[in-house]
């Protein structure tokens, strides 16, 4: 069952089309990664989900309810952390956390204390003295100390140090283990890879790819590092081979996943001494999508999908 359904969502600001027929859904207990470059429409989508912006067209449902008309009911079961957290400069972090928790209607003192400790936040300081990371911690603590069913996190770690990023990841895993759903918009691809069951890539207001990581990897290339007894001949004549490079450790190249079998068969004739393969990272996938639009006439060998 999906907690979040977006179908054919279009949002226009005057003549500018920010979102153009966006479709995706997030299942119950699923962590969904939402990635895309700056200005692609991630935050706009999230604001429509929150009922802050009204969709020009299309249907947005959370928990089966309309995001705009039943925003208040939905928000009782939802927690949100914006990427750019602005707080009231003359309130302390502790006060803001309590305010947010109180407005939602829940009350979980012990979780609040535990999270404050985990995130190493001094809740007695005024918000004006907080750095970006600390303001983000306030929003994260407020979100995770509430008992929500869906967490919407918009680039929540952009100001956190690696240690705190790890704490954040634990929090996400924790809510996931409790069967809650998470929509995580992020730029940090390693984080998305680590946490997300499925990802959606948005570009210029359109979702250009959705699926589980393994499904998406299918569409991309595996990195191969190989050392052979005899030097490999006519490698570049094979289909689906990219970026061949001679290094000190051996020969590296990338292979389209569909062609992997043929390539391995070919190179095994030359006596493999060492073979390392790395799965394609999300970054490759990401970069490939952006490159693909910029270089319609690819300089690289091999076809663009």
């Amino acid at each position, binding site marked *: 069952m999906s907690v979040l359904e977006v179908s054919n969502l279009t949002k226009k*600001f*005057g003549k500018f089309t920010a979102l153009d027929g966006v479709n995706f859904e997030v299942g119950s207990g699923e962590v969904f990664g939402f990635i895309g470059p700056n200005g692609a429409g991630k935050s706009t989508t999230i*604001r429509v989900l*929150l*009922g*802050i*912006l*009204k969709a020009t067209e299309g249907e947005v449902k959370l928990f089966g309810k309309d995001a705009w008309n*039943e*925003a*208040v*009911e*939905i*928000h*009782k079961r*939802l927690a*949100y952390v*914006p990427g*750019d*957290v*602005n*707080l*009231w400069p*003359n*309130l302390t972090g502790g006060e803001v956390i309590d*305010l*947010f928790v*109180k*407005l*939602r*209607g829940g009350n979980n003192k012990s979780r609040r204390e535990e999270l404050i400790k985990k995130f190493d936040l001094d809740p007695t300081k005024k918000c004006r003295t907080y750095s970006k990371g600390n303001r983000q911690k306030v*929003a994260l603590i407020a979100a995770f100390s509430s008992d929500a069913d869906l967490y*919407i996190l918009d680039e929540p770690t952009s100001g956190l140090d690696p240690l705190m990023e790890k704490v954040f990841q634990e929090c996400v895993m924790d809510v996931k283990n409790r069967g809650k759903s998470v929509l995580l918009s992020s730029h940090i691809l390693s984080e998305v890879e680590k946490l997300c069951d499925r990802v959606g890539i948005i570009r210029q207001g359109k979702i250009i790819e959705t699926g589980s990581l393994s499904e998406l990897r299918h569409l991309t290339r595996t990195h191969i590092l190989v050392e052979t007894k005899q030097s490999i001949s006519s490698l570049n004549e094979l289909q689906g081979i990219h970026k061949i490079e001679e290094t000190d450790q051996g020969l590296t190249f990338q292979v389209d996943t569909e062609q992997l079998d043929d390539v391995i068969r070919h190179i095994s004739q030359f006596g493999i001494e060492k073979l390392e393969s790395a799965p394609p990272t999300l970054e490759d996938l990401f970069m490939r999508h952006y490159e693909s639009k910029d270089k319609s006439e690819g300089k690289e060998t091999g076809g663009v999908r």
Partner: protein
Amino acid sequence: MDQHSFANTGKLSRFILRLDRVKIPLWIMGLAMFTLVVPPAFDNLYKTQQERDAITETMANPAMTAMLGTGDLDNYTIGAMTAHQMIVMTAVIVGIMAVLLVTRHTRADEEDGRIEMIRSLPSGRLSYLNASLIVSSGTFIGLALVIGFGLYGLGIESMDLEGSLLYGAALGGTGFVFTGVTAIFAQLSESSRGTIGWSVAILLLAYLFRAITDISNEALSWISPLGWVSKAEVYSSNNWGSILLMLAVSILLFVVANYLNNIRDLEQGFIASKPGRRYASRLLQSPIGLAFRLQRTGFIAWAIGLFVLGASYGSIFGDLESFFEGNEMYQQMLQQAEGASIVEQFIPTLMIVISLIATIPPVMAMNKLRGEEKKERLEHLLSRAVSRTKLIGSYLIMAVVNGFVMISLSALGLWSAATTVMDTGLELGMVYSAALVFYPAMLVMIGIAAFLIGLLPMLTSLIWIYFIYSFFVLYLGNLMQIPDLVGKLSPFGHVPQVPIEDVTFMPLFLLSIIALGLMMISFVGFRKRDSKN
């Protein structure tokens, strides 16, 4: 708009009240004190009805009516006197208070992304707007009651309970109206600066419109919300109709604000922002260019505003002239100064007010430096090839030029309007020198602002307290006969009253030297101190 649109309004109201728990009582106390010190002072000065009737003679002229609004001069009791001389000015301050309080919790919170956080919680679309409307309304009900009962509590004979409560209600009602005006501009404009700018523009327009219509066609003053304040005729006929009108209009404004909020997207406005330039113009590419650019809109707005202010004072000179021609007693009373016509003798009094108002924009221009520092934007400049001397120098030049332009434009406005309406006309040189004598005093104010920024950055806002002090002693000093010495503590108290007095060199020279000294110290201080926010 279903009930969900207002979910959690109560909690948010309490929250906003908590955020402003210091600010609101301070405003109310300040305004109450400002109001409550006046009647006892009048009571002391004008002990008998005869003395009070005598003062009506100086009050019954178009200049005073334009400045203060209409009053019950036939029955000039202490109450009527207080209402006449104080209520419109206080109402203007109440209007500014409403604009600032409401902007803070509507567009300013929205612009900073705080309303986004609130809206992601189970609170309604219209909750935050209405919470801030509730808090603001509560504040002005409180203000009305404090001032109403406070005035009654002074125990002055002519100030009965009904009149006192009406006095408070007229001020509170003005607060309601400008709460509504600001709430609407918070929807229309895309920034908090825009919201404040538009709302204050409406307030000034209301004041000017009232000033002009009060002396030309009193019935038309009903169009201005500030006209309703004098039309309440506090302590004479006690017209509660004005208050009803204020309430009706503000409810209408509240409803419109809610409607506009409901149909718009978050962080959008109705007054469209046009796309900006792709490249920085040549003008912008220097610290002083940046300093100017950051304040350009405000500079232009103030320049227009001061010209209009000068012109609206100037436009009453025609009425003033005909008024004096038919009044023998006046002619005797004022015929002390040689070489200046009767009308011209009003110029210094007007110039004090004009020059004080013209001091606001240059001081703001100087303080912008501190504002930029607080927002940590100076770092961008100081981390590049810009010296601190150059930086503070840029802002200082901006402020000094700003002040000169402002005082010149207001003098020009006064002269051009006065000349068109008068039979004989005024001499431009005379009007201009009457204005320009205040320039050294303005420079001292700019100097003090610079000095504070250079040496005591945390106390930058002290300049406004000193400014309010100057305004208080010089504006009210005329009305209440405050001892001279108190006025001399302000640079404006040393300015010769041109054209009644001659332009004396010494005080102006000394003021200029003091200003220069303060500015030089500010350079040294700014070079040496840490940058802090």
